[in-house]
């Protein structure tokens, strides 16, 4: 493996190199830019969920003092269809946010409302869905296999629609410098924004900057229509324009994680093996990306059916491990229900349906890893303490323990990196990537520092600028593999070039040299023949030494793809109030070779918290009559807060077999299993299955009441 067997600094806990800038408020985000003459953008959004625009007069807005530009969004005019609440209609740029709001109020807007469609169950009942996509066995084959199974279950699981709710809204600050467009964006992909602005404006050149951004979770990959219009407003007004969505608009149109219904029919035999699994699912944008057994071995008979539905509501965007949290919620509860039908320990039932002996070595490795994680997690949570039988105890507070499993990819995207070593000892690493909060900047610094015997603080990391060597978007957990393989390869080359420059002075050839603590360069086997880092660099001339990694250039073993991961939850349920509290949460995650153990643990904790937040309270609530969102804020859209935090035990799983796989991304896997684990824990606590997210008190109490009935 090309990574060091006994790294000097890699894999240890390192504070972020940009931690102080963020915590002290010095870090400048795209929404913090204040170029001279800045104007403030605002958008008039459609206030109804469905309808037709019957009147639109923007001229009064132009008369409001302080308003410098007003324009309709492309395609918007009298007669336009309103397909969902929040559709952007008109954009303005003004001297202050308040004046921009005045301008919006001055616009004459009339809409003829139409009947909204915001309930996917209603849509199915009324046949308002597209052609189903069916794969696998026929319904008759499923019926036959179920009839032959020792146990069978039929269950329907429903997942709510979430919104990304990034703390920094979507948007950018646009400034024209002649015919060149500069945009400070809040984005997961400066290259994506650059491409979008190039296609949508007639700029001679487009530069996108993003040093810091306040969260994306899959929703920020291009300039969005409002970013493009900000550039156009800036051109017309002859001044820079800052355009970021309001919080309500964020909830309405800046992306949702699609929710929907999964109807399972599944069977198993007394030997603990699945016999048949059928999943029929439907929802707006809800097509699930893997088969109905998710991480478990599919039996001979599986069937998957998807009905597409189009609601009059904000559309889906990728949301941190798209599909997977929903698949885990359905499949891992299905497994739990079958285990209980068989009277088998749910942990053992899961293990029986994994495939550590698969002929596919990656599959075998992932399942071997998962089984070891399950055994270890069971010890950490105290699996033997779980409520027996489920629902035992007189209450009103009942405790239970549950488990769920997940998987993800995490291989690298394409990357170009350039390293420069200067005669004063400075080291710069350049790549056009972005740090979305995952610690990318620090990962790059650590890899370069490890290679050169330096500390990460001695490395200047230059990212967030499309002028740097191209890199891809930070999605799919692809960044850490991309930028660390880039930093290592480019730094190695620069190091070899430095060796070549100083070898003669040490009476050796470049191949004889090594680098040690502090960047000291010495002759292998003869450490007294050495130069300090400063002495060696002083021999570099006016031009820095450069090492480059170009896209497509790989070293085998630096990265790979495919991870396991398991979560155990202990919950408390008050059967009188219906309130669910998560008491303890064990999150075990493998991600190959770990670069920074501190930020790696933070990802595992952060993912667990995001999943717990969904399980306890996140749902987009649409009024059934009007279709409008009833909770487009950060109070009633319930993100979990400090008071809801359990004890969280993050476990970075990196035994030698896993480390040898190289770097694998972990931004997404840790968010997948919490809802499934909590669902199974609730069943263990109260003996009643609650199959709909989020687990708000009404759903718990209704489930308990149904059991009584």
């Amino acid at each position, binding site marked *: 493996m090309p990574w060091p067997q006994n790294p000097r600094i890699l894999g240890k806990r390192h*504070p*972020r190199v*940009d*931690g*102080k800038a*963020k*915590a*002290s*408020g*010095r*870090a*400048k*985000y795209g*929404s*913090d830019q*204040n170029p001279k003459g*800045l104007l*403030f953008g605002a958008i008039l959004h459609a206030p109804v969920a469905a309808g037709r625009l019957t009147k639109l007069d923007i001229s009064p807005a132009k008369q*409001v*003092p302080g308003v410098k530009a007003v324009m309709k969004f492309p395609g918007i005019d009298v007669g336009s269809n309103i397909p969902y609440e929040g559709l952007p209609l008109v954009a303005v740029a003004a001297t*202050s*946010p*308040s004046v921009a709001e*005045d301008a919006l109020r001055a616009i004459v807007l009339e809409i003829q409302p139409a009947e909204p469609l915001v309930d996917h169950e209603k849509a199915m009942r009324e046949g308002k869905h597209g052609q189903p996509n069916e794969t696998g066995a026929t319904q008759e084959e499923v019926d036959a296999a179920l009839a032959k199974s020792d146990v069978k279950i039929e269950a329907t699981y429903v997942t709510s629609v979430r919104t990304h*709710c*990034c*703390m*920094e*809204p979507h948007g950018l600050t646009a400034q024209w410098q002649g015919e060149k467009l500069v945009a400070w964006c809040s984005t997961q992909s400066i290259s994506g924004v650059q491409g979008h602005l190039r296609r949508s404006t007639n700029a001679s050149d487009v530069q996108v900057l993003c040093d*810091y*951004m*306040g*969260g994306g*979770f899959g929703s920020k990959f291009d300039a969005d229509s409002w970013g493009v219009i900000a550039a156009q407003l800036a051109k017309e007004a002859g001044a820079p324009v800052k355009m970021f969505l*309001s*919080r309500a608009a964020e909830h309405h149109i800046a992306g949702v994680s699609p929710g929907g219904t999964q109807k399972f029919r599944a069977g198993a035999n007394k030997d603990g093996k699945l016999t048949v699994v059928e999943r029929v699912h439907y929802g707006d944008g809800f097509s699930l990306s893997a088969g109905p057994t998710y991480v478990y071995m599919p039996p001979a008979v599986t069937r998957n059916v998807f009905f597409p539905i189009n609601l009059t509501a904000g559309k889906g965007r990728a949301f941190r491990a798209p599909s997977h949290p929903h698949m885990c919620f359905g499949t891992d509860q299905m497994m739990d229900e079958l285990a209980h039908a068989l009277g088998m320990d749910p942990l053992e039932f899961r293990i029986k349906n994994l495939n550590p002996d698969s002929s596919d070595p990656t599959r075998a490795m992932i399942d071997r890893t998962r089984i070891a994680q399950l055994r270890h997690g069971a010890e950490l949570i105290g699996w033997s303490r779980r409520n027996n039988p489920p629902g035992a105890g007189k209450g009103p507070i009942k405790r239970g323990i549950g488990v769920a499993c997940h998987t993800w990819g995490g291989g690298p995207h394409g990357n170009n990196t350039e390293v420069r070593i200067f005669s004063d000892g400075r080291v710069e690493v350049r790549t056009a990537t972005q740090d*979305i*909060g*995952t*610690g990318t900047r620090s990962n790059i610094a650590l890899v370069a520092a490890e290679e050169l015997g330096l500390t990460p603080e001695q490395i200047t990391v230059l990212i967030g600028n499309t002028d740097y060597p191209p890199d891809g978007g930070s999605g799919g957990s692809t960044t850490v593999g991309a930028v660390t393989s880039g930093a290592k390869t480019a730094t190695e080359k620069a190091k070899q070039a430095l060796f070549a420059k100083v070898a003669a002075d040490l009476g050796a050839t470049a191949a004889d040299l090594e680098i040690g603590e502090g960047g000291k360069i010495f002759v292998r086997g003869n450490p007294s023949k050495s130069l300090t880092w400063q002495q060696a660099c002083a021999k570099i001339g006016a031009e820095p030494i450069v090492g480059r990694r170009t896209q497509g250039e790989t070293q085998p073993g630096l990265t790979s793809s495919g991870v396991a991961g398991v979560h155990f939850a202990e919950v408390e349920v008050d059967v009188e109030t219906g309130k669910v509290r998560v008491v303890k949460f064990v999150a075990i995650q493998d991600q190959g070779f770990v670069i920074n153990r*501190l*930020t790696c*643990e*933070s990802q595992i*904790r*952060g*993912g*667990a*918290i*995001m999943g717990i*937040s969904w399980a306890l309270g996140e749902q987009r609530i649409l009024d059934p009559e009007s279709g409008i969102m009833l909770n487009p*804020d*950060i*109070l009633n859209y319930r*993100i979990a*807060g*400090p*008071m809801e*935090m359990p004890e*969280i035990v993050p476990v970075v799983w990196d035994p030698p077999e896993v480390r040898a796989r190289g770097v694998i991304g972990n931004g997404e896997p840790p968010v997948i299993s919490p809802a499934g684990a909590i669902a199974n824990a609730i069943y263990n606590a109260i003996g009643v299955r609650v199959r709909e997210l989020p687990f708000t008190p009404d759903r718990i109490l209704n489930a308990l009441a149904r059991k009584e009935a």
Partner: protein
Amino acid sequence: MAGEKGRGSSGLSRRKFIGGVGTVVGAGVALSSTTVLQPAPVEAAPAALGPGAVPLKLNVNGRDVTVQVEPRETLAEVLRNHLDLTGTKIACDRGGCGACTVMLDGKTVYSCMTLAVDAVGKKIVTVEGLGEDHPVIRAFVKHDALQCGYCTPGFVVSGAALLMKKKNPTLDDVKEAVCGNVCRCGTYMGIFAALREAGGGA
């Protein structure tokens, strides 16, 4: 709002009515269930500000600054747009998330729910005023109490305010101090550890 529009059936403008209510309350008049609020003479009403930009003297991080802002602008907007103090963030603009937390006379407030005019005469402290090496900031970095960082200044200010009031805070003290701050990335555990250590509670 630009211009005064519309009068109520009593013939009173909104400004006179509001001015009257202020004076009645200020004069300490006891109100019984049969009391009907009467408008006070206009001369006794406090001076109105605006419409249009007016000069406001604000004391920010120990310095007096004068800004020209409309009275309807929030303290958050003035800090960010007029003083380039962008450490204070606007994430929801509706008092729901705490990203805009600042201190007014030592008490944490949501600056998005505070009019700049209401901060006149008070000591405003933003995250910038804590200095880059504040113990809370050092502890946040050590415990990785941040990811994207957008909510972080709000938590730092809430945490600094706690430590001004309480030594050796317990975990419950810490949770209560920051329960008005929301984090989407899920950094709470690091925040708890950081504030307990910074407060000596470890």
